[in-house]
Each structure stands twice: as structure tokens, then as C-alpha cells.
């Protein structure tokens, strides 16, 4: 369960108030991608809001491509997240296979880093899941599998927020969409 109250997307901008119940996925669609990233970080607890409030019920996880480093492999990156979150190695390996990837894939390309970031969030996927631009740079096959996985998570007791500028991506998995630029 995630509750947002009076949180502006940018200084002086319209304030957002919405709830994301368990088993729901809410999309935040807008053109200002840096502002959406800051918003996603705030929703995941990475930033403290100066104005407004965010309540997170349960553990939160976020999809962060910048944390996936080219010196690591997919298995190392996701394995570290999984181990820190108390998941078994087999769970991590199943997750990697679910997206049709291999653990020894080096994170040297934007596509690999995007996949690692999304996978890191999805394997931890319980409580609140915040996905910022999750399908950017993803291969079409991985994208399709990731969409299926997110839809499956949304059927479980997980609250999902997806932010981004690509309407097709945001609407692909969201039950409802808030269009930021329109102020709705």
C-alpha cells in the first residue's frame, strides 16, 4: 500500500495526491523525465519530500539503471540484491531465466543495464514497487516478458507505480494513469 498526499512533481507544480492499493498498478505519465525520476526516488524512499507526504506500507524496491555497473554481470548484480533481501540463489536464477537472460551477461550495454535494473526490482517485488522508465533500452523479447511479470505481480499483494514519458510503456501495465502535464 502506497499513499501520496500533496506531493508536487516540481517546485510550484501541481501537487499529486493518490493511493496505490495492494494488487494495483498506477502509471504516472509526463514529459519531464528528470522530474519523474525524482518523484520515483521519493516514492521509493530515496528522497525525503520537502512538501507533501508519502506513506509506504511494507518494503519498497526501485528500478535504478544507474546502479547497475558495467564492471559487473547480470548474475552478480541481481544476486547481490537477492542475497541482501534474503532470497535464495535459485530464486534469483529463476528470475534471470524468466526474462530469458543469462547470469553471465556483462552489464556493458544500456540494454543489459536496463534489464539488470528491472530484474533487481522485480525479484524483490513485494510491498511497494517503483519502476521509473523500466522498459527504456530493453530488447523487445525482454520487454514482453517483463510486462507479463509486472502484470503477474500486480495480481499479488504488491503496489506498483510506474513513471515514464512513453505512453505505450506506462499504459501497458497500469490499471490507471495520472497524466502529470495535464495536472490530472
Amino acid at each position, binding site marked *: 500500500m502506497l499513499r501520496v498526499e500533496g506531493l508536487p512533481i516540481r517546485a510550484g507544480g501541481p501537487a499529486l495526491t493518490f493511493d496505490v492499493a495492494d494488487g494495483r498498478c498506477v502509471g504516472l505519465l509526463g514529459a519531464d523525465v528528470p522530474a519523474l525520476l525524482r518523484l520515483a526516488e521519493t516514492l521509493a524512499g530515496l528522497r525525503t519530500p520537502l512538501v507533501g507526504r508519502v506513506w509506504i506500507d511494507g518494503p519498497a524496491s526501485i528500478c535504478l539503471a544507474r546502479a547497475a555497473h558495467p564492471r559487473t554481470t547480470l548474475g552478480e548484480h541481481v544476486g547481490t540484491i537477492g542475497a541482501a*533481501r534474503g532470497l535464495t540463489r535459485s530464486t534469483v536464477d529463476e528470475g534471470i531465466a524468466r526474462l530469458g537472460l543469462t547470469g553471465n551477461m556483462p552489464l556493458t550495454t544500456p540494454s543489459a543495464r536496463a534489464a539488470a535494473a528491472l530484474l533487481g526490482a522485480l525479484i*524483490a517485488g513485494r510491498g511497494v514497487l517503483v519502476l521509473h522508465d523500466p522498459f527504456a533500452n530493453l530488447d523487445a523479447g525482454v520487454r514482453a516478458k517483463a510486462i507479463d511479470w509486472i502484470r503477474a505481480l500486480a495480481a499479488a499483494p504488491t503496489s506498483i507505480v510506474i513513471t515514464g514519458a512513453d505512453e505505450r510503456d506506462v499504459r501497458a501495465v497500469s490499471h490507471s494513469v495520472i497524466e502529470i502535464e495535464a495536472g490530472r
Partner: protein
Amino acid sequence: MIAVALHEARMIGRRAIWPAVLILHAAATASFVIVWGPTGGVPLWQASLLEQLTAMDRLAAAALLTWLATAVLTDDGARRLADWSALAGLPTATVFRARITALVTLSLVFIAVAAPAFVAAGEISAATPRDIARHIGMSLGFSALAAGVTAAASVALRDRVGVWCTAMAVCLIAALGVRMLPTDLMRMLAPAIAGLIMLAAVPSMLRSRRVTDGD
């Protein structure tokens, strides 16, 4: 925390700076033994070659390990810590402790590359294996101190040069404080070096404070 510490150790080990530090350390200690071994040590320095090497190694650790730790700990600033805190679902302090654990563990390797030079210096000095092991152990302890001091400095300061200079100064002062530098020559040199380093760190500290105040 262990998983994140392993990840950090892996990340540090794959940086270009890591083999550079190891090669510099191995080369410095080996060169010292090769150059001064035939004469039994630096002339006018009333200590055995092993003791001289141990003292020199502390200066190397104070410079090289703090350099490595600074590069690692100040990389991407606090953002990377916060990112991994969010990804791993751990407090930022735990991620930071994991990074320090990785650094301290890697300092074992830092000392290990100098072990052959210690053994050679010990044999030239006719030291017992126990003495050689004691000197290597003390160097290891000092290396861990250097990593810890740099970690503390990186929390207080944001500027990379400031962190490095401050950590070096504190390491040298610590070495003096526990009489790890055994000769008069080194006792004269070390305070001068520490003073210079602290002077060099002052502008960085002031700049760091201005940035902090401006936030």
C-alpha cells in the same frame, strides 16, 4: 551485509586503481630491499633492514591505501550508497559498513604483495620468522587503520583531495603516536610531512564546509 560487502570488494577489485596500487606497493617494497639490502639498510638510520622496511611500508600504506580508499569511498558521493540502500533494502549505514569491510579485507591483499620483500628483509636482518610475521601483522593493522581513517574522513568531507590529505595526515600522526617510525630521521620527516598535508587539506575542508552550508 555480507552480500553487499562481497559486491563492493568485487567492484573495488575490478577498478584500474586496484592493480595500480598493488603494483606500486610491491614495486616500492621490493625496490627498497633491492637498493638497501646489500648495505644492510639506509646509512645513518640506526635500525635493521626489516624495521626500516616496516617504517617505509607505513608511509606507503598512508599514501597508497588512503588513495585507493578515497577513490572508492568518494566515487559518486553519497548517491551510490543511497542507491544500493534502496536496492538492497538496507540502511545506508549498513551499505557504508559493507564498503569499509570490503576495503579492510582487501588490505590483506595489499600487504600480501609486500610479503616477499618482508621475508627477504627479515633474512638479511637475520630476524626470526616470528619477528617477520609480527612486522607483517603490524603492517596489516596499520593498513586497516588507513582504510578506517579514510572512511571516517569521507563522511566528514566531500572533497576528494581533502579526504585523501586528511587521511594521510591522520595516518602519519597515528604512526608517530604509537612509535611505529623507529628512527630519528623518520621522526623528523614525518611531522613535516603531516604538517604539509594538513595545510594542503585546509582549503578543501573550507570548500567542503561552504558546500555543506549551501545545501
